[in-house]
């Protein structure tokens, strides 16, 4: 036969979405927050982000080249990790420390476990935690926006939340306070998060249950829920880090449990612990239990009778 026809199993068409497009939308959704951080912290923020993105992409490329694997940098997942890592660092972070963070995120957490889809925890979160542990002094030196010239020790709003009044809400929303890049302008993060929900990249379930739980527990603990929601890395964590596909549950039931768990751990650390910030540890801890959530929150299948619990009639 002159012209051979292709024979393969159905389906013969696929959807328009691809991993690359999804990651691209996440990058786009982070742009408002990046712009806000540049306005608040100046060019340092932009340079730091460029450093982490470039080093994440480089480590991914270099590791795969070294291991003789196909280089997946076109899927943009390393760019997302780079951006998120930068958003978890203060603008004054020395470059070489940021590069160490990128190495931990991409090589140790992502590639050593098998690459995209096989990491047990969010790479950027672990990168941030490792830096916070290793370079604690640099990680908590938040440049204060009004100063703008050099790093100045300034507490995040969470550390001084007792002194904040309701007139400070606007400051929190606009991000004119000390902190890491991504935890300043809540409005910009929110805009990006809404974009991700509208384009169906993420389901609203995790952010809504996470933020909801924090709000309820804050009220119960007699703290100002608005301050709790708008400060620290909560917004960034809820919309961009906790919703990472690889390390969050897939079913609606699982997402609910995950979101509530995140809220409880975050509040426990914030209210009961000695640390100001609980978001990154909450996400890491919940990442670790995702496999258990997954197997216990499977969907009911059509026409399959539910197995009765032992002892039930």
């Amino acid at each position, binding site marked *: 036969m002159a012209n051979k026809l292709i024979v393969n199993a159905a389906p013969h068409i*696929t959807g328009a979405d691809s991993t690359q497009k999804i990651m691209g939308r996440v990058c786009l959704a982070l742009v408002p927050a990046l712009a806000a951080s540049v306005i608040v912290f100046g060019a340092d923020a932009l340079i730091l982000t460029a450093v982490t993105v470039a080093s994440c992409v480089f480590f991914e490329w270099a590791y795969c080249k070294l291991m003789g694997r196909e280089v997946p940098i076109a899927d943009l997942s390393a760019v997302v990790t780079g951006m998120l890592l930068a958003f978890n660092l203060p603008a004054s972070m020395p470059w070489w420390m940021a590069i160490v963070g990128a190495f931990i995120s991409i090589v140790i957490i992502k590639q050593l476990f098998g690459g995209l889809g096989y990491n047990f925890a969010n790479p950027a979160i672990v990168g941030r935690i490792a830096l916070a542990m290793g370079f604690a002094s640099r990680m908590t030196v938040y440049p204060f926006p009004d100063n703008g010239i050099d790093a100045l020790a300034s507490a995040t709003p969470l550390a001084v939340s007792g002194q904040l009044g309701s007139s400070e809400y606007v400051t929190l929303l606009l991000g004119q306070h000390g902190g890491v890049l991504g935890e300043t302008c809540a409005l910009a993060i929110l805009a990006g998060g809404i974009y991700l929900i509208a384009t169906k990249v993420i389901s609203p379930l995790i952010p809504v249950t996470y933020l909801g739980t924090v709000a309820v527990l804050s009220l119960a603990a007699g703290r100002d829920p608005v301050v709790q929601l708008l400060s620290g890395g909560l917004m960034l964590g809820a919309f961009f880090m906790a919703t990472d*596909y690889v390390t969050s549950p897939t*079913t609606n039931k699982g997402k609910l449990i995950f979101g509530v768990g995140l809220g409880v751990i975050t509040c426990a650390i914030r209210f009961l612990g000695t640390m100001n910030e609980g978001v990154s540890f909450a996400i890491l801890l919940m990442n670790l239990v995702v496999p258990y959530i997954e197997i216990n929150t499977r*969907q009911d299948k059509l026409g*399959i009778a539910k197995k009765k619990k032992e002892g039930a009639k």
Partner: protein
Amino acid sequence: MSKFLKRAAQGAGVPHEKRTSDLETVKMPLPSKIVLSMGQHIGAPAAPAVAKGDQVYVGTVVGKAGGFVSCDIHSGVSGTVDGITTITAPNGAVQTAVVIIPDGKQTVDPAIAPPAVTDLKSFQDAVRASGLVGLGGAGFPTAVKLSPKNLEEIDVLVINGAECEPYITSDNRCFLEDTKFIMDGIQAVMKYLEIPKCIIGIEGNKPAAIAKMRSAATPGVEVKELPCRYPQGAEKVLIENCTGREVPFPGLPSDVGVVVMNVTSVAFVGKYLATGMPLTTKRLTVDGDIVKEPKNVEVIIGTPVQELMDFCGGFTDEPGKVLYGGPMMGNCIADLSQPIMKNNNAVLAFSKKMAQMPKATNCIHCGRCTNACPLGLSAKEIVQAYNDGDVELLIELNADLCMSCGTCSFVCPAKRPLAPSIALAKIMMKNGGKK
């Protein structure tokens, strides 16, 4: 909300591509030969009832049903039997086939007359003699379907007019062109099986069909507009959306008091009761990016695909893939000499560019497969269990419930061939762990 937590079952927003929906059905002239496979239905293949050199007429039985779950095959032309041969079906099965050369006269078999139907038994016999199989694609002998064991418990007849596959518009044309036959068929089934209620389910992208059926509907017959979500026309999904009932697994629609018929099948019942002419022609949508003149064609069953394509102006570019059926569940054919079968509702031809499937990349656990699955299965877990050879987990995940609708593969952003892998997983389950 409870459904939301129970099972997302979002389905997929597949492209419609229904550009032939306004094209009236045209009759294709006689082909140079017809090739009638003896395996055009689910169940035992038919046995050839003619030999080389025999004279046959339009409507003559050329293949006798090979058992209860089987079906007669009739000639759609008058002419001479050229021989008995074998053909390889798209699923790889080798089937006996009768080749007939038309004489051009289209003389009708003298035995053809409207059947005398007075009660359930004579109605079932008539449907059996008509050679009708489920024309939506499954090809299940209709006479068997209309003989449920628990007949007295059946209270709803569901007519499947969802036509959720992209490109295909033959059911839409059936609604518009065969309205009367559809209603006659529905009334006959309701009367003889004593079913009080009928629901015609049609996807919202066929407003003309919905309007026409609403104006033709008789008491007890309801037309339900369904959301355009693939796979709306899958039997279990359709039943759930039309009646709210869940078909148990393993089980049949009759277990929840439902009989489902495709609209083209029920229209044929109506037509057969009036004419007595068995199933020898089929309305097909011929489309695809390289088909010069996309058409809805009434074609004689057994016509080689090549001649059907020639009738539609041929190809504008080299074909890369030719399908029986839609792009979501259709089967590839290996060459254009393959004949049209009873259960075909479309022949689609695609360019080499469209035929090529994208490269699969790592699973990113986005969960789209899980949330899209109309049955609530978790494709990524099933495929992982298959790769691990874990049959126990496959049983726990109910992999055998999968109906291969392809929704998981379609929505996967990593372009992983999930549906074909699950098909392999089902085979592994049956074989007790061997791949």
